[in-house]
């Protein structure tokens, strides 16, 4: 999943700003993307992720700052001269051309002979699993096939960076999951830097080596998927990536090694200093934890760390999992926890009393 950190830099943003009239779309983006990386820009709609992608492609001019691709400043370089290719959200397959003509569109100035180009086109089609589709009319393709044509059309030019603008959002769920895996395999096979724009956090987690989470034109956090999930930088990121419970808390005392915290329902406990996220005073203090870090203890199971009594307030049954909204005795808010369903173990009813266990090591402290 993770790449060696010593890869050379492929793309570098230095304090990139973009204004549309009065609207400040990108607010000082500074980041680097490494060569050969599968990088995702994740965020809600309107957060600037697509704008940022389009500044790489050359479709948007930036108001200030620097965008470098492969150590070259891209200021004033038009889209057709950049070493990037894009898979558009609508796929942008030319409707007046056949599949082969679409895939070969970018080869016009290629010095190779006609036969060599035709061979390259059929190889590209083979790579995306569309062998023998060359002569088909582009408008007769399904969504998944269009996507593959768009991929082949971009990859045949061997770009340094492949840009993917929400490429899977138009596909149904099954198809999407299948294409996710195929894209990962394809990226490993060709070794090109992939930059994916998506609003789907699951998609980003599944596919990326690193993810930049964006809100309001800024990068809120840039990390590998595991760090992002385990230790989100602030409550907004935590809410955007998966589900997180927040319990109001109070910091009792603090040393450079550890922090003493008190939270109604959890009682008083100590966390390591590196479990704290965010700058001091940014947000109301709270402890955050993922639903799967809480466990309901059945029969005579023992808690490995801490446990308390709780009441079940809501039950959502998913087949393989059950989500419970529980309220720890004395806690001001209900919290969601998830349990894997095991044969022979009953699903609790609303109103049932349960023993809930957790580990303070899995908590994140927001302050």
């Amino acid at each position, binding site marked *: 999943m993770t790449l060696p950190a010593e890869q050379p830099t492929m793309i570098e943003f230095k304090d990139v700003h973009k204004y549309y009239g009065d609207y400040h779309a990108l607010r000082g983006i500074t980041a680097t993307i490494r060569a050969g990386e599968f990088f995702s820009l994740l965020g809600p709609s309107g957060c600037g992720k697509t704008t940022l992608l389009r500044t790489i*492609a*050359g*479709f948007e001019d930036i108001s200030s700052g620097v965008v470098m691709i492969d150590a070259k400043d891209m200021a004033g370089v*038009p*889209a*057709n*001269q950049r070493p*990037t*290719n*894009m898979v*558009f*959200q*609508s796929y*942008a397959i*030319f*409707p*007046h*051309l056949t599949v082969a*003509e679409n895939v*070969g*569109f*970018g080869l*016009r*100035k290629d010095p190779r002979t006609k036969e060599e180009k035709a061979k390259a086109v059929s190889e590209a089609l083979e790579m995306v699993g569309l062998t023998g589709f060359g*002569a088909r009319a582009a408008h007769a393709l399904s969504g998944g096939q269009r996507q593959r044509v768009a991929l082949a*059309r*971009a990859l045949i*030019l061997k770009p340094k960076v492949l840009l993917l603008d929400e490429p899977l959002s138009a596909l149904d769920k099954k198809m999407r999951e299948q294409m996710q895996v195929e894209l990962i395999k394809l990226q490993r096979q060709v070794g090109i830097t992939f930059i994916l724009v998506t609003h789907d956090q699951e998609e980003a987690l599944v596919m990326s080596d690193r993810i930049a989470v964006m809100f309001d034109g800024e990068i809120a956090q840039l990390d590998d998927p595991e760090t992002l999930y385990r230790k989100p930088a602030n409550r907004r990121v935590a809410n955007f990536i998966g589900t997180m419970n927040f319990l109001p808390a109070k910091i009792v005392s603090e040393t450079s090694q550890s922090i003493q915290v008190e939270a109604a329902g959890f009682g008083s406990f100590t966390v390591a200093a590196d479990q704290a996220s965010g700058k001091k005073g940014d947000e109301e203090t709270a402890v955050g934890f993922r639903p799967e870090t809480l466990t309901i203890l059945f029969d005579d199971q023992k808690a490995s760390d801490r446990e308390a009594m709780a009441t079940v307030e809501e039950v959502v049954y998913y087949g393989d999992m059950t989500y419970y909204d529980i309220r720890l005795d004395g806690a001001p808010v209900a919290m969601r926890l998830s349990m894997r369903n095991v044969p022979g173990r009953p699903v609790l009813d609303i109103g049932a009393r349960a023993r809930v266990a957790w580990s303070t090591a899995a908590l994140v402290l927001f302050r």
Partner: protein
Amino acid sequence: MIKIGLQAEGTTESLGGTMAQGRLQRRILNPEAINGLKMISPTALYATLLLAVPLFLIFLYSFLTDGYLTIERIPTFGNYVETWTSPVFEKVLMRSLGVSMAVTAATVLAAFPMAYFVSFYVEPSKKSIWLFLITIPFWTSYLIRVFLWLVILGYNGVINSTLMGLGVITEPITAILYNANSVVITLAHAYAPFAILPIFVALEKIDRSLLEAGRDLGESPLMTFVRVTLPLALPGVVSAIMIVFIPTIGDYVTPSLLGGPEGKMVANLVQLQYLKLDNYPMGSATAVSSMAMVGIALIVGFAQSKLFRRVYGAFIGYSNAGLSILAALAAVLISFGACIVVGVVASGAFFAIVLAVAIGHIALLIWLKSQESKA
């Protein structure tokens, strides 16, 4: 549901007769089709009485003999022989075709940038205002617009007095009024909105991300236009050509007011024969002949545009037309030659050439069709 059922029935039956019956049932006798026919019946009746019947009468007249002040019911081809061998008809018809082609070329070439501008450079919220402005000339009667051109193009008109005032010319230009030029200028102005709108619609339909994709795949803005925008706008251009070409060839008002003796067109000739010479059969034969010419011109145009598309495709580098185009051109030339020989022997040279062009292009269309189905 009905459609599916009938189709299944049709395919299981092996006899051709029942299949034809099934098709008839599907096309005309199904409840939806009957409903549709009922709904268009008032319009259809109106069109039949006021359009089809008069047209049929003209067709009938053209095969009758002209007597003094009467029409004698003696069937003859004489009117057509006279029409197609007459140097006057040849000259006027060629002028009509020439004027229409010039008008079409001028209008479409001027309309494209206009439509492109409105589609690509005008803010979406202001597009409807622009389209509205384009239709403003329609607010005045066509006659008034024609007279306005008279004022602009006249001997002491706006253009001449301006140019003389500026000292560009010492004598008024007479080449711009009372001849084919003034007819072309006026018609091109009158038909501009009809050409702008279909091209605009075709351009509007182009997904803008296609143009970005063109840039992204390494093409300059100009080559993106050539390889993406233009081919996708072509249907609009073709309909603009048809909309301008077909009505202008039969235009009567403009040449009679602005054409002078040197700018008269086919419609003026028809009027002359009907009303001045009182020769209905000759007038009808002239009218039918010119209609046939429009049909032939359209076949020619259609075949040429198909051929053009192939040549264009090869030129911009995504088709393997190459040699096959040369073969097609050779085939057309040979068929032309054969037709001209046959035609010259049989009748007048003008008729021969028209026949040759028509047959040659029908052959070209059939050949292109066979090439397409092979691909």
